[in-house]
């Protein structure tokens, strides 16, 4: 095989893996469950995973830059709880309370960024600390009990419809599109890839590395907060343990979508498909009445398989 052809195959394989696995799952579930392919179920998949996709998009930005954000699940819970509490306990207007939740997420993310950029902490450590801190604040604020009673204007964002389309679907499609444009069309996006590719080179080329890092972690926090609000709206209440493990789903979706853990490689379309794959797998297993504990085993196995194919393709590429 010529080098060019092998490269083309390898690149195709790397881009295509996640789509192939998703197709395989769709075929498998439509053969084993007659409810799977029904329109309502497909809409369910798109709606129920809105928060995962939104968080995964933020995680992808951070990972492309060579970082990681472990705090997203906790930040989501905190933003959900605060926005719900401001409405239910303090009588804030829904819009103001949601804006406050989103701002809080942005600030939490920015704090991660400050610890990483100026405190020189590794992203893993800084965001692990934030994972604990944000969860702790959530537990203190909620006193360990769910907060409910936010009203329709709040739950609309996970339960309502914009025209004929479910609102959460609109939300995630818009977010995916915006961040995709951000990464592929703007200077900021190029600089994220550059930092992930080689931070020192980027710095020497005059890329404002610190600013890009701060903003990227801030955006990841912002998107985590948005996910928290979607999640809170979907279950009609802010749960103190909401979003636990969400960071792992987001990392899994990104990695499945072809984002490198070392930065510089990957993109939003891959991540979106990766997140849908995670969602489809969960949905299909629910339909097949697989118990929730073994579901995690299967999810782990699928992740390993997809990444193994990716590593193989990478070896092919290098020749």
């Amino acid at each position, binding site marked *: 095989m010529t*080098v060019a052809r092998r*490269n083309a195959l390898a690149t195709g394989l790397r881009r295509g893996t996640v789509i192939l696995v998703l197709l395989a799952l769709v075929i498998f579930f439509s053969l084993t469950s007659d409810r799977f392919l029904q329109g309502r179920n497909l809409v369910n998949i798109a709606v129920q995973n809105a928060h995962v996709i939104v968080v995964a998009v933020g995680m992808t930005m951070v990972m492309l830059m060579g970082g990681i954000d472990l705090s997203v699940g906790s930040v989501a819970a905190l933003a959900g709880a605060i926005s719900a509490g401001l409405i239910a306990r303090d009588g804030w207007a829904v819009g103001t309370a949601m804006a406050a939740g989103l701002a809080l997420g942005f600030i939490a993310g920015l704090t991660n960024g400050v610890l990483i950029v100026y405190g020189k902490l590794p992203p893993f450590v800084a965001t692990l600390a934030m994972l604990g801190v944000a969860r702790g604040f959530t537990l203190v604020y909620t006193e360990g009990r769910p907060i409910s009673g936010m009203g329709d204007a709040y739950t609309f964002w996970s339960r309502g419809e914009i025209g004929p389309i479910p609102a959460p679907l609109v939300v995630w499609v818009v977010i995916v599109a915006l961040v995709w444009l951000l990464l592929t*069309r*703007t*200077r*900021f996006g*190029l600089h994220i*890839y*550059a930092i992930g*590719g*080689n931070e*020192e*080179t*980027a*710095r*020497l*080329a*005059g*890329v404002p590395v610190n600013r890009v890092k701060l903003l990227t972690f801030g955006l990841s926090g912002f998107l985590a907060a948005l996910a928290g609000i979607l999640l809170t709206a979907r279950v009609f209440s802010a749960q103190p343990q909401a979003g636990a493990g969400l960071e792992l789903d987001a990392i899994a979706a990104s990695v499945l979508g072809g984002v490198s853990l070392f930065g*510089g*490689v990957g993109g939003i379309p891959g991540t979106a498909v990766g997140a849908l794959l995670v969602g489809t797998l969960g949905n299909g297993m629910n339909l097949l009445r697989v118990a929730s504990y073994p579901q995690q085993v299967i999810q782990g196995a699928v992740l390993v398989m997809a990444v193994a194919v990716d590593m193989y393709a990478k070896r092919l590429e290098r*020749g």
Partner: protein
Amino acid sequence: MSTQPLLHMTHISKSFPGVQALSGVELTVERGEILALVGENGAGKSTLMRILNGVFAPDSGQILWNGQPVTLHSPHDAQRLGISMIHQELALIPYLDVGKNIYLGREPTGSLPGTINWSKLYAQARQQLDCLGLDIDPRRQVRFLPLAQQQMVEVAKALSLDARLIVMDEPTSSLTEREVETLFQQIRALRAQGVSVIYISHRLEEVFAIADRVAVLRDGSLVGCKPVADLTPEQVIRMMVGRELSQVYEKGDEASAGDVVLAVEHLSREGAIQDVTFRLHAGEILGVAGLVGAGRTELAETLFGVHPATSGTIRLNGQEVTIQRPAQAIRSGIALVPEDRKAAGLFLRMNVATNIVMALFGRLARWGIIPWARVEQIAGDFVERLDIRTPSLQQRVRNLSGGNQQKVVIARWLTLEPEVLILDEPTRGIDVGAKAEIYRLMHQLAGRGVGILMISSELPEILGVSDRVLVMREGRLVGEFDPRTATQDDLMSAATGSGDSGRNGQ
């Protein structure tokens, strides 16, 4: 135009904990001048250039740019003045395409703020590459380009900065002779336009081919700065090392042609080498010349089992051996000192002793327990034998100079007492003094009956050190030469496969 020099660095001093890196260095660069900056590793070249690039602030001294004192806080400041730097280690981002790499940090703005005008970016990149006579697609990802082309992209990047002064740190370390000549033409064209160049290189032939003046640093001080016409290479070497160096290329005793230790017949690996047949005698240094990409490294990797051969035979001392993995090669007595010692040869964060003994741990350990006293003893022996300069056996290898790092890698393989030692570019990025020591070491080993296969892109080195020279082109052996009678032109024309006798950098 003012009569001030373009750049005047005056009384520059800089110390780091425990080291006086620079003391009172004076350096001037005129407009349209090529100044070569030479010195052994650790002489202070990179510190001086980092100060010029705004990475370090000097402890004392001043930088005058067009006669005006300037303070540089970052590479960005330097860039704005018109100082641009091409680093020795490639500083490109592999997963970005050529155009993005060239214009990173100064992308042309598109119709909306924050966006990028892609078509303008690629058109400018195309123009920049055309200027250099490079046929490279600006939309191609850098990782798919051969090393030499990547280097040229770096050059294109610096030129695109409209620099008034370009610092090139070992720009030719991975270029072929032909590409070096292209680069030199470009540098001369720049000079004609009034651009100045500080050219850092260990290769004195290049310095004498391109530079107007030579500045020599030793131990953090400027020991001289003279027009190249007033100097000979021997004088420059003496200034660099501070002593008489008998000869860089020191022949060992006339090689006593021993028995054939390695016999390779019809060795092929798809897409890499084809039908390679040669013999290596005990005590012989066999040089392998060729252009970058001619299959020399691939040959070494095949012999060492990194990528197994698809056909052909390898015999060691007459016995046919199967080599599918490096472990088999090692067991058979073949050792490889790879081209990129940092990536494939060294554990940079581990200490000297561990690095030297790494390959022996399996044999030394009893019940999995490492006898550290014995390790230190063995490592100490080799440090002494190879004259590895390190403050202690506990020093991290990362902190040693390039030449001493190379000796550590060689020491590791010597612990296994190999019969065949393959050295891939053994002196790349190593200063003159250390080079001479590596050559001496090679002759010593050959004297003890080790067969040495030396791959090198430096023709003077190939001719100066080898007992016999093979030339490769497109994966095949295309010639065998006697270095006592062959010239650089002979090797080049064999390597390029043209009657046109290549270039020899003079």
